[in-house]
Structures are given as C-alpha cells and as structure tokens.
C-alpha cells in the first residue's frame, strides 16, 4: 500500500503498575523509508525503547497500528510474524544481559537461523557458513564460536550481539542504546563497526540513544522524544544545528564538551 519501511498510526502504549496506568507512548505517528538511518533521542522515560519494541513486534500496543513493508503487524499472531522476525533484528544495550551465559557463542549467533518461524524466509542458509561469515564481519576469530560469553570483554560481547543480529540477513537493524554500557575507547570501535556494516550490507538502521552525539554520528534522520511523544524530527544536521523546539535546544546545550582552552572551571556555563 505504500513504500514505507515502517509506518505507525496513533501508536499508544500504557503500562499497568500497581493498578495505576502509566503512559509510555502516546499517539505516535511515524514513517520510516527503506534504507533510512533514523536516530531516536530522548531522556529516560521518554518512550524511545517502547517505540522500537513495538516496531520490532516485541510488545503489543494499547491502541494504534504498525505497518511493516505495507503489512499491518499489530494484529498478526506470532506464528505469522516470520517475515518480520527475519527482516528486523535488534541489538541491546548491555551485552552481559543480552547473551545467554549458558550458551556457546556459536549457538547464540545461529539461534535465529534455527527458528521454525524464520526457516521458510531463509531458504537453506547453511548455519556453519553463515556463522563464519558474520564472525568475520564483526572482526571476531572463528574459534570464538566454541567459547562462552563470559570469556569475552564488553566490546567483544557487543560484537557477538551484532553478529547474532546479522545472521538471518535482516533488512533492518534496530540498536537500543548500543554503546551506552561501553567504555569510551570501545564505544568508538563499535560505532565504526556499525557504520561499516550498515554500508556494506545495505541495512536500514534505527538507533535509540540518550546521547545525541552517538545518534548524530550514525544517523541521517533524527526524532526527538519526550514524555511518550515525538517533539521534533528531521534531517540530523538540521536538527543538530537549528533545533526548532526549546526542548531540543536545551538537550543540545546540555551536552558536555571537552574544554581545551583556558578559562575558569565552569566558565562554559
């Protein structure tokens, strides 16, 4: 019906907490074009993670609808979501929690390939070949497959998580705070890896982050969220240099920058 990759209509999600309703996402209308690199920025509680979980079909909205490549996925039962699962893959914030400590790295990465739901979409992808391919793609040694996650450093674990996401040859990669649990030096490596992969594999990319600079580096489009709503969106550089809302301007102003010149401590404020 349209050429959109994702489209949402009045997407709303409320959680129940101790008998009280907590709105996490309210009336979000969003269009994402194929091949887009979209960054979603917001502070804690802005609803950014809720939004991408709804896009990935990992949660069901309270009301509103989501289309993926023209198919409405909101009402679809799990057994008919195979195409979505094969096409949309996620990378999470903390690789310590996103890798099962009791599975070998090889089994973790090939888990998507073993899913009965995905098999029809993957027409006979050979597990071992694909495992070798994706390990190479994220710069890990082939013998990593036989080891357990705790034998790897934080940056390497995030590479394993990225390899898992790549395994079923997805069209879309959704990364939820992919570098905020990592050290500064590792952060740059993982950002470089993501940039390279997105270009090499021709992926669409959706990045959720509290850090505007991370999103600016990875994405060409930007959506700023606050309290469950999108308050501003547009091309990254435009939003970054000429924010149209006060909130975005405040967000930008609050980013700490390295003070290299002389001056009193705190003078930059």
């Amino acid at each position: 019906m349209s050429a959109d990759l994702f489209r949402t209509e009045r997407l709303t999600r409320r959680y129940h907490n101790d008998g009280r309703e907590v709105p996490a996402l309210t009336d979000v209308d969003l269009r994402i074009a194929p091949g887009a690199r979209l960054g979603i920025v917001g502070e804690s509680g802005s609803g950014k993670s809720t939004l991408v979980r709804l896009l990935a079909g990992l949660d069901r909205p309270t009301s509103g609808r989501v289309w993926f490549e023209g198919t409405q996925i909101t009402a679809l039962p799990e057994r008919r979501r195979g195409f979505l699962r094969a096409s949309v893959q996620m990378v999470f914030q903390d690789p310590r929690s996103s890798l099962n400590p009791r599975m070998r790295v090889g089994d973790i990465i090939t888990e998507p390939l073993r899913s009965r739901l995905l098999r029809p979409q993957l027409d006979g992808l050979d597990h071992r070949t694909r495992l070798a391919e994706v390990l190479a793609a994220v710069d890990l040694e082939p013998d990593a497959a036989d080891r357990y996650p705790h034998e790897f450093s934080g940056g390497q674990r995030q590479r394993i998580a990225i390899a898992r996401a790549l395994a079923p040859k997805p069209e879309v990669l959704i990364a939820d705070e992919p570098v905020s649990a990592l050290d500064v030096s590792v952060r740059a490596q993982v950002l470089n890896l993501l940039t390279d992969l997105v270009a090499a594999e021709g992926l669409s990319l959706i990045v959720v982050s509290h850090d505007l600079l991370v999103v600016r580096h990875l994405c060409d489009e930007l959506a700023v969220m606050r309290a469950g709503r999108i308050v501003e969106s547009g091309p990254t550089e435009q939003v970054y240099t000429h924010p149209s809302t006060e909130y975005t301007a405040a967000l930008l102003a609050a980013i700490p920058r390295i003070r290299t010149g002389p001056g009193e401590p705190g003078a930059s404020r």
Partner: protein
Amino acid sequence: MKKAQLIAGLLLVGVVTLAAVVSLFWTPFDPIQVVPGQRLQPPGPVHWLGTDGFGIDIFSRMLVGARTTLLVGIISVGLAAVIGAPLGMLAGQAGGWIDDVVMRISDVVYALPALLLAMLLASVFGASTLTAMVSIGVASIPAFARVARAGTLQVMAADYVLAARASGTSRWGIAGRHVAPNIAPVLGVQSSVGFAMAILAEAALSYLGLATPRPNPTWGNMLRDAQDYIFVAPLQAVWPGLAIALAVLGFNLLGDGLRDYLDPRLREVA
C-alpha cells in the same frame, strides 16, 4: 572453602548411600527379629553400637534405616520436583492469570505442612512409608514451584530472551534453550536442600509414629524406642540422631556447594 563444602557434602551423602546399598545385601544381625536374651547390650566387639530394648543389633537397624531415609527422600523430592518445577516454569513464563492460579494453589498447599498432611493421611489410611512419602512430597511442591518461578522470571526479564523472541524463537524454544538451562542449577540446589528437609520430615514423622511403623527400622522410630530407655541406656538415643544430623548436613552442604559450583558467572569472578 566452597569446594570443601561440596566435597564434605558428597562424602556424607556417599556414606549414607553406601550404608543403604550395603543393607540390601548384608547386615551383621537380623534387623527385625527380636532376641529376648540380648536386650540393651552396651556397644562392644559383637554389637558395635549395642542392642535395643528388643535385643536387636542397633548397627544393623541403622543400616536398614539409611535405606528408608533415602527411599523417602528420593520419592518425595522426585514427586515435588516433577510437579513443582514445571508448574513454576509455566507460571513464570505465562504470567497473567495462569501465574495467579498456580501461585494461589501453591499458597494453599504451603499452608498445610507435611506433618498435618501426614496426620490426615494416617488417620484415613493408617501410617505407612507411603503416606509419609506422599505427604512430604506434596508439601515440598510449593518450594520447587517458587524456586522455578523466581528463576524463570529472572531469565524472562533478561535481554537475551527478548533477542530470542526477536529472532522468532518459540515459547518452547525459549523454555528449552534459555529458561531450563539457566534454572537447572537452582533446581539442583533446591533438590539437595529439599532432600535434607525431607530427611528431617521423615525422621519427625516416624518418630511420632506417622510413617514407617515398627518393626521396620527407621532412624526416627529408633529414637522413639530409645527414649523409653533414656535413663538406662542413653547412648541408644545418640546414634540414630547423629545419623540423621550427618545426612541432613551432607545434603545441605552439597546444596550450598552446588550453588557456587554450578554458576559459571560466579566461577568467572572466583
């Protein structure tokens, strides 16, 4: 230190198991036949631990008692694990009303301790090894269900389950690949600790005459008999109690040792 616990636990459990196995083939004397001329012999070269008020060799009865102890433990813990663990996993993975129903049933059973269940069963059917096993087993179900549920909830909250779902892994795949392997260690620990509790419960029940009846020996009913002679032959009341305590200690130590040994994340830190 932790490894020492594991080894000590294995040793104690091994000794009890050995005693039970040996008793199947050999005991120094007949553990049941009353010998009127041999009443209340002190420990010595013939009767290592002496004889009881019926003239029966106490060591022989201790060996056979180990068998009953293990049998009741295995059956009741097995029953509790086979029913409780899947229920707990179901509750944890399904959530919602299924969780509520399972946990309420578990609360109900929890309110009825093994002793009271055993009293009810014993007054209907008469006390036997079977009523003891059933009541201990049923009363232990909630513990397994709770442990399995808590573990399942923890696993289900982890991002790797979300990642698995995002990869199209089915409920069964998540249960089999993610939940089961991750809660297996806690269930192993619970089995060991539950075994210790079962031994204590069996001992209490047979002490009160609510489990295996005379003349078949159990450590609990031996203590009941020994109490009648406490002013004459106090040592009689020491051996079976010591056996119970060491068996319970063994299974508790084994459980604690397992807890640390089975967790790869803890091993990494150590």
